[in-house]
């Protein structure tokens, strides 16, 4: 797999459901990346972004305990972090100004995540 030849990345994971977060963590670790988080609440995310935050990419659940991730997604985009949305709503649930970022529909497979990371971060 192409991804195996990449250098490991630090990827921020924001997902409010434990089971799903644990699965994504496992997928990313299997792909050789390290996970920042998983961050499961917006309060924790806020705290994290207040500091000197950097990541090679971020995979964001759209709905965190009933609230949209979009304000935080904009801040991450401003920091130059490549974004990947993971959403049960599909691409239609993404705020218009963020719609150019890729979306992976839930449930997703390891291959889908790997493929998405490839397109986001061309060699």
């Amino acid at each position, binding site marked *: 797999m192409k991804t195996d030849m990449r250098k490991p990345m630090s990827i921020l994971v924001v997902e*409010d*459901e*434990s*089971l*799903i*977060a*644990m*699965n994504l963590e*496992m997928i990313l670790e299997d792909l050789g990346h390290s996970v920042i988080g*998983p961050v*499961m*609440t*917006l*309060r*924790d995310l*806020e705290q994290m972004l207040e500091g000197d935050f950097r990541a090679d990419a971020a995979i964001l659940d759209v*709905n965190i*305990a009933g609230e949209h991730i979009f304000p935080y997604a904009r801040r991450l985009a401003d920091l130059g972090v490549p974004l990947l949305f993971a*959403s*049960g*709503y599909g691409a239609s*649930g993404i705020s218009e100004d963020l719609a150019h970022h890729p979306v992976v*529909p*839930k*449930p*997703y497979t390891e291959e889908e995540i790997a493929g998405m990371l490839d397109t986001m971060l061309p060699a």
Partner: protein
Amino acid sequence: MVLDRNHCYVAVNKAYEKVVMRDREELIGRNLFDLFPNDGESGQRLRQSFDRVIETGEADTLAYIPYDIPRPPELGGGMEQRYWTAVHTPVSGKAGAGRYVMQNTVDVTDIVRLRQAASLPFRRAETQLLERAREAEEQHKALMSESAEFRRLFQLAPGFFAVLTGPDHVFTFANDAYMRLVGERQLIGRTVREALPEVSGQGIMDLLDEVYRTGTQYQAEARRVMIRNVESGELQETYLDFSYDAIRDTKGNITGVFVQGSDRSEDVKRQHRQRLLLAELNHRVKNTLASVQSIVAQTLRSAPDPATARKDIGARLAALSKAHNLLSAQEWASTDLAEIIGQEVAVFDPERISLDGPRFTLSPKASISFAMLVHELSTNAVKYGALSTDSGTVAVQWKEEPDGNLKLIWRESGGPPATEPAGKGFGARLIESIVSGEFGGAFNPSFCERGFSCIVTIEADKLRGVKVQT
């Protein structure tokens, strides 16, 4: 003569005094029906005609009415047979004084008598004239009752109707449904711009002008119109189906606009809610599938053999499913903590596992998470702890602490001594993730001689789903 709305004489002239054989002093201020009682059909017709004029403000004609009047005693007393025609016209009083009826009546008794005699050929023309007057009266009555019936139907129709007259669109009619739509405001006699200032800016005036000018019908489907609520003063979103049709006079000239339609707001809002609900359902189904995927993938990875994996996957999916059942029964609003725990440990002997705690409401998210948490704890007890022996017991206690935390204690005893495992399995990681990751709480396990125990501490409001400031 002129009557007030109670049928009392307000004014009479000489001709009237003469024809009814009474002086004005006997008439003014007295009720017509007291002076000239008539319990028959004629009495009713006369009364109805007066009342119609008062009510509608429009003139009314009685072309022919037999109405006997009492003869004054000095003229011999008794009743005198009389026949009349009468035109009743509304007369406005001073501001706020209400309406009066003016009656212009002609005593046609002589003509009738001649007709009854019917033998004199040279009177024929007059009797024919009277006959025509009588027919006209019949037709007029039929028309009046027909239009009254139409009016009543329009008034009560479920759709809204209004008639606008003239180039400025003055309301001349609005039915009950129209009044409900715009709130109880003064419409009749006012222009649309005056009566409904808030809709003037929404393109409505241009549409009305266009229909009045060109006569072309306008139709709208589920058009959004903001209407001010008369009571709260706030603009309210409505969705209306409506049409504007030009009203023409007999020469074909446009005299006004006929407005009809129905309020579709509830329909449109229901469709909107349904779309939201479908999107939400889709989101939940996808998330649930992702949870199932995670359970399968991670159980397969940690299980020592396929048979164990199959059993563990089945049990975890069942735990997830049971939590959904409880939520579904509560219309996905909330569940009670005791029910979530009770449902999960229901397979065990109640002698072996005790629950003790107050009612505590869990949000949907917390319900699913707690179901999984309790499932992992009890699975662990069955595999390695108190429930792996014949006599071990588990005590589960919870309470809300004064500091706002929910404290749940899981205490096993009577089983083998507990030893801390070398690595963390799926269950332990899931519990950690739920307690500290999802809810920012603390999970404190303890492995003792007596058995396994743990304390879960989480801010109560977070479990209830109360929004907390981030």
